[in-house]
């Protein structure tokens, strides 16, 4: 099965982790055999450019974290060109780089900068991409993530996920905070805080809003909050529980779970609380709904067969059909963005682990090694699955590549971290 190949913490990451805004420390283990060796050279820049945002370090860390790249150490190199015209390719071929980037940051005045980057093919000695980005001083990290996405796309043919964000709940003492951070764990910002539990954050498809469950009124109630304005609205506060929000892919409505005076059942509702419609009608527990990416199905957890398994029902309602058959306990379904794979939590002999199921073939793969793993969610490109785990009794976040080869742990410096949700890529 998945064996831990090696565990190493890159000095590079340690350096970044001491950054004042870094809350999630990232530790990587394992790695694919087919990693692309790439040299990300320091950007040429004038003194006005803030030193703390070293774009090349951010980009190298992004690419390394994906498991598909090996960022090469460039500090010992005699020549560090900032433009293709200065590049002596044999020096970089000797370092075994297959690709490299050179670039410079030029002030445009009024706090604006132009970031120019060239992605080079070392073996063919040619330019793969030549791109300009504009950034203000506060946008260098974001620009670095966009450059990482560009490199990832050029060299793998797939979209990157570096300029996306993640949400999670931090519990420090008796205080709960729903946090939003960059995909690399930087810039953590609280969205809402409470001394009652907050669970089940769900990003709207456009990344502008968050649905979540708050117990602030001594019962679970579903809220939706705008990330930018902080405007906060109750979506569902019916008698009994209101929980497990999931957005339809077009953002038009949410699936939620209500109980009234009985067991959990799945409903759909508009964001403004109108248009409530019951989707499942059973005497069992029906919960954890999630829409398929085409919007046609709602997959959910149900114990209608005795033990909890994953079922699907047409998004407009109807007769549910069972989806998982292996194992006695399968819960928390989440779709890959292409709709072809389902991640969920399996209780495997008392160990709760992340599994994926290829939907066309039904083939199941166990991906995580923890014993209390929860809340899987896919990166926007489907390549990585983020989940909650426990390390020495403390809640922390972990990620595993969808092929199971690369693992990461993201731990916050304080508190218990849980309920992660990976958001869409930012524009």
């Amino acid at each position, binding site marked *: 099965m998945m064996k831990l190949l090696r565990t190493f913490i890159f000095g590079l990451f340690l350096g970044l982790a001491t950054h004042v805004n870094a809350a999630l420390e990232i530790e990587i283990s394992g790695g694919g055999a087919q990693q692309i060796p790439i040299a990300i050279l320091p950007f040429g820049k004038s003194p006005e450019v803030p030193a703390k945002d070293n774009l090349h370090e951010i980009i190298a860390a992004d690419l390394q974290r994906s498991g598909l790249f090996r960022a090469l150490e460039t500090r010992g190199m005699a020549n560090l060109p900032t433009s293709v015209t200065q590049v002596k390719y044999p020096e970089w071929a000797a370092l075994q780089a297959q690709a490299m980037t050179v670039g410079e940051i030029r002030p445009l005045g009024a706090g604006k900068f132009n970031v120019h980057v060239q992605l080079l093919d070392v073996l063919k000695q040619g330019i793969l991409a030549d791109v300009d980005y504009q950034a203000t001083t506060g946008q260098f990290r974001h620009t670095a993530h966009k450059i990482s996405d560009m490199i990832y796309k050029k060299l793998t043919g797939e979209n990157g996920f570096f300029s996306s964000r993640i949400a999670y709940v931090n519990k420090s003492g008796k205080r709960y905070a729903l946090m939003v951070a960059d995909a690399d764990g930087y810039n953590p910002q609280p969205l809402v805080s409470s001394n009652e539990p907050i669970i089940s954050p769900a990003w709207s498809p456009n990344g502008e809003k968050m649905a979540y469950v708050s117990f602030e009124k001594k019962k679970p109630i579903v809220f939706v909050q705008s990330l930018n304005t902080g405007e906060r609205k109750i979506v569902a506060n019916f008698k009994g529980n209101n929980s497990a929000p999931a957005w339809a892919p077009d953002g038009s409505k949410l699936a939620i779970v209500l109980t009234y005076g009985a067991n959990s059942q799945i409903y759909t509702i508009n964001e403004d609380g109108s248009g409530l419609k019951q989707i499942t009608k059973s005497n069992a527990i029906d919960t954890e709904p999630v829409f398929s990416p085409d919007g046609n199905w709602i997959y959910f957890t149900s114990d209608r067969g005795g033990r909890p398994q994953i079922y699907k029902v047409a998004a407009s309602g109807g007769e549910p059909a069972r989806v998982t058959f292996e194992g006695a306990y399968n819960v928390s379904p989440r779709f890959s963005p292409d709709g072809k794979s389902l991640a969920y939590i399996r209780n495997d002999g008392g160990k709760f682990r992340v599994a994926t199921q290829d939907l066309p073939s039904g083939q199941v793969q166990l991906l995580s090694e923890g014993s209390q793993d929860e809340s899987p969610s896919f990166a926007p490109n489907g390549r990585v699955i983020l989940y909650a785990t426990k390390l020495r009794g403390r809640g922390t976040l972990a990620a595993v590549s969808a092929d199971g080869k690369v693992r990461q742990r993201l731990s916050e410096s304080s*508190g218990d971290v849980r309920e992660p949700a990976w958001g869409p890529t930012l524009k």
Partner: protein
Amino acid sequence: MLKPLNSKLILVAVASALLVACKSTPMADKPAAVEDKSPSAATKPADGASTADTSGVKEVVVDSNANNAGNNPLKDPNNILSKRNIYFDFDSDIVKAEFRPLVEAHAKYLLANGNAKVILQGNTDERGTREYNLSLGQRRSVAVKKSLNLLGVQDKQIETVSYGEERATQNCADENCFQPNRRVDIVYEGE
């Protein structure tokens, strides 16, 4: 048996470090802070007022809850109505026979006090996922509701909710630790 629910949570709180939020830069707007408006928080100023007094004059706090405590059967430690926890076996929502007198006493009180409303809060231990545990806890609160219904209490006096595993003891190693988490708490509206 009736240990205060929060005792373990408070221990956790002591060990807490700085909120990560403190060192981060805020978003465009401030995060929505949610205040605790719980009755327990509301009664705290009563204690605070007397200890904060520096003039040597002891302040007497006349607080409606404190005043009623002596007469309120729900608060009287000698009255079975002050017992509010119903415990369950593993993976079970069956209300055990030993809790029948407790359920009957609350049913009697609700029948005699038609304006009283009770909130049944289901709980589970920490094993399993949060949303599924929320549903499992709900099943337990519904089981207690059905027991009350059988004794004649109407649904309009009962709300069933669940906290799932949110109030469960963390990192349990054995059944002695798991067991007290599998329960329904009976809370009267306004408490």
